[in-house]
């Protein structure tokens, strides 16, 4: 079984170089100055504001993304036609192009130089350089996640269960709530978690639309970058990075715990 050892060693080294060492050094450097220094960095008003803005953004983006994702998944998996194929392809565009391009395009469309910016401003709605723009950019970059994790499940379960429910007298909404969605809930949840993590971490698109106003339109990744690049506040950037990583770990743990509980309960595979 020598080959097994070689594979294990290569994979371990790979993970150590890419994940283990960077995260290890992040921890070491963050805690080098002691807990009180970390606390001071984390509780700085701009840092707190960045965390809150990031979580608020995610709180809007994730449910919207899931809702639209479910609708689009049903469309892509259950209907046919050229326009359905077009929708299918369009949902992939955000992963195909750089987030920076998404940011620039949003600015072009919704700032005062764009087609709608002036009209929107007259309505009193400022999109670019505001949280609205951050939400838009986050929605755009997370577009495909729920769709890509839900469509394969919808295709796999087929339509027999839905038809069975219909012959038993169920209407479309009841079929959706009691048959279709429960069958694909892990796909939706998985996609929503990915969208949440991406929203937390998105940098390029958000940087461009937000205008990077400290204490106002700065999300956590931009705060980290700003501390590092502009203010030479390395501890601030380390602490911010650690917070970001912590939130991600917590969310992923909750998800896997939920899944394990469900598996135990039903003893049938879910996702």
């Amino acid at each position, binding site marked *: 079984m020598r080959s097994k050892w070689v594979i294990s060693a290569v994979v371990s080294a790979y993970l150590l170089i890419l994940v283990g060492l960077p995260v290890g050094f992040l921890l070491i450097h963050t805690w080098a100055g002691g807990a009180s220094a970390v606390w001071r960095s984390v509780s700085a008003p701009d840092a707190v504001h960045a965390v809150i803005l990031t979580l608020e953004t995610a709180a809007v983006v994730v449910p919207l993304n899931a809702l639209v994702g479910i609708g689009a998944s049903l469309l892509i998996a259950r209907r046919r036609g050229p326009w359905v194929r077009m929708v299918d392809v369009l949902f992939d565009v955000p992963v195909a192009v750089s987030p920076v391009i998404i940011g620039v395009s949003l600015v072009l469309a919704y700032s005062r130089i764009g087609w709608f910016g002036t009209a929107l401003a007259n309505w009193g709605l400022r999109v670019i350089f505001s949280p609205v723009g951050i939400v838009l950019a986050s929605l755009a970059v997370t577009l495909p996640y729920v769709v890509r994790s839900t469509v394969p499940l919808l295709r796999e379960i087929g339509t027999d*269960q839905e038809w*069975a429910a*219909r*012959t*038993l007298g169920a209407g479309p909404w009841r079929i959706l709530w009691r048959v279709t969605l429960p069958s694909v809930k892990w796909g939706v949840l998985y996609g929503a978690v990915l969208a949440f993590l991406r929203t937390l971490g998105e940098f390029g698109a958000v940087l461009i639309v937000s205008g990077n106003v400290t204490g106002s339109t700065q999300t956590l990744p931009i705060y980290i970058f700003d501390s590092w690049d502009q203010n030479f506040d390395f501890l601030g950037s380390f602490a911010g990075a650690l917070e970001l990583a912590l939130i991600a770990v917590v969310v992923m743990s909750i998800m896997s715990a939920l899944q394990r509980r469900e598996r135990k309960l039903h003893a*049938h*595979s879910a996702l």
Partner: protein
Amino acid sequence: MPIQLSNLSKNYGHGAVVSDVNLEIPSGELTALLGPSGSCKTTVLKMIGGIEQPTSGRIIIEGRDVTDVDARYRDIGYCFQAYAPFRHMSVAKNVGFGLSVRGRAKSDIRQRVGELLELVRLSDKADRYPAQLSGGERQRMALARALAIEPQVLLLDEPFGALDAVVRSELRSWLKELHQRLHVTTILVTHDQEEAMDLAETLVVMHQGRIEQVGRPLEVYDQPVNPFVQSFLGPTTQFDGATIRPHDLLISASGPDVVTHIDDLGFEIRVTVTRASGESTWVQLSRPEFLDTKIASGDQVSVTRR
């Protein structure tokens, strides 16, 4: 006549898959749609259930034209070939689904589900999930779920298709018994002639989207209207240029014909004979009959009609 199909056709763009089906299905009986795969018998079943929309023609159930009625208002119990259990619901919830959709009181549902589970012998599995059931149990659960809404018609698509031989014959006699107790008008789709002969009171033989023959099983077996029906319902052989059932032939020792080979299938023995005329024919014998004749390969025999 609870179910009447008149001039029912289904077209998928590249041509008709079901053409001009006219059929009357008697009340309270079990009718089998029998045909080889590709005869589109399931398509007919789905059209009756409202799962497929016919291109033309009418479907009338108990005097009510349901052709344009949505599946949810047709009052039909449909069992899918793969049973289509709601995987995230317990057995009891599956069976009670139709009742809860109808807004019945929780206590009513619990009682009715209890009765149904007893009927399909799944009382001890009420809290299990479909993934924890065997194939036969899943099938019985699907049947209970369909029966829960007290449908006017029960539609079964290849009910034993996915089961192994032992469970299959067990479930078959159970279904026969159940039907004799409930007398729900039932239409069953199958490609297995033995199953159809055993269960059905009326047989509808289909081929390439058309009905070939309708009748009582023995009637169809004994008086097939064409060679397709004859050969689909059971083995055939040639005798004096005519196509007949090989069990209608007798074999006796000594004569002008020669035994070419013998296939021993256990209870059934197939004796292939080259006749004096050069015609090759085969005779189907039971084991006791075969042992009485004491024939072996290469023997001189004579073959006659019974």
